[in-house]
């Protein structure tokens, strides 16, 4: 009975943020994704490299939209993406013949490692998964995937976060570095 009762929930959603916060979240994420996408489409266009992966959209939610969250801090952003990328590539290389298994192992192991290293960053799960399901262009990168796009993209997004999130007097980022 307790088991089903727990499914009812027991508290309420936190309050809606103010209009100013919404505006700064919009500005920050626009700038962050814009810079990463510009590098991807204009600078790396003729190379086999890429700069942008889907999980950066999720990172933008945290580092521009929930900047006080422990999950959004630099340690988590960079650590979460790089470690998860390594796990994802390893999962593909060792278990790639069974894509369902490689996918599940990549995400679950990435979460475990992020917890263990105190770098939990939800988009890291996507970074690990993309290493498996991302197709040939991702697979050809091998472990370089952890540096470009995962590490470098996250670093560019971090720089934009530091610049944009500290403009408004009532906003500050980060809460901590390591």
């Amino acid at each position: 009975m307790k088991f089903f009762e727990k499914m009812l929930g027991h508290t309420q959603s936190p309050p809606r943020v103010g209009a100013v916060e919404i505006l700064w979240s919009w500005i920050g994420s626009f700038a962050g994704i814009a810079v990463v996408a510009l590098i991807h489409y204009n600078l790396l266009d003729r190379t086999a490299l890429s700069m942008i992966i889907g999980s950066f959209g999720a990172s933008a939610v945290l580092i521009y939209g929930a900047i006080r969250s422990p999950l959004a801090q630099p340690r988590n952003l960079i650590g979460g993406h790089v470690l998860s990328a390594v796990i994802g590539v390893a999962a593909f290389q060792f278990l790639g013949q069974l894509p369902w298994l490689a996918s599940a192992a990549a995400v679950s192991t990435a979460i475990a490692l992020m917890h263990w290293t105190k770098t939990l960053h939800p988009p890291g799960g996507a970074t690990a998964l993309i290493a498996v399901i991302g197709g040939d262009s991702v697979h050809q990168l091998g472990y370089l995937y952890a540096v470009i796009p995962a590490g470098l993209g996250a670093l560019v997004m971090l720089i934009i976060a530091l610049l944009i999130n500290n403009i408004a007097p009532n906003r500050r980022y980060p809460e901590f570095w390591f």
Partner: protein
Amino acid sequence: MNAANLRECAPVDISDADVMAAMKAMQGYIDITPADFREVYRVAYALAQERMLNALKAADIMTPTVHVLDADADLIAAATLLADKGISGAPVTDSDGRIVGVISEKDFLRRMGAGPGGSFMRVIAHCLKSKGCVATPMAGRTVRDIMTAPPITAAADISIGAISALLMEKNINRLPIVDAAGKPVGIVTRSDLVNSFCMLG
């Protein structure tokens, strides 16, 4: 209120509405639900309270003993001293200076018809019903005859939390603090305790 529910003294409780209002007052998205915040608050508050109850010892808050009564002193001298010094009680020592009891207004009141509760109003009622002053039978008696003995005492390193519990449990107002030889070195009264509790709400 007894020692048991003093221990369970609840922290200043906060409601979900309080947490929601605080979250609204802070800029930015606070990544925690009101219920989780309250859980963190309750545990942290209990730890803080525990730390504060143990941080202060009797030695930090006691009044060093200045007024001690000899067990063989007569009650006129004892009552005069208490009145002159504006205190309501004092430790009682034997000829070696060791504590043998505590004497307070309650001990006098009890002999004046106040009953075991030591109520002054009971004395008034008793006084109005009978003829003459009810204190006179005590003339010629000594402190030893009416003091509370054996005394409840503690060492200087007792925490204020433990003192509160002891005062409540034994229903006493002052706790003499004694050294290893049993000689009084200070006294902690309820008012000393109230002063030390100012931060505990």
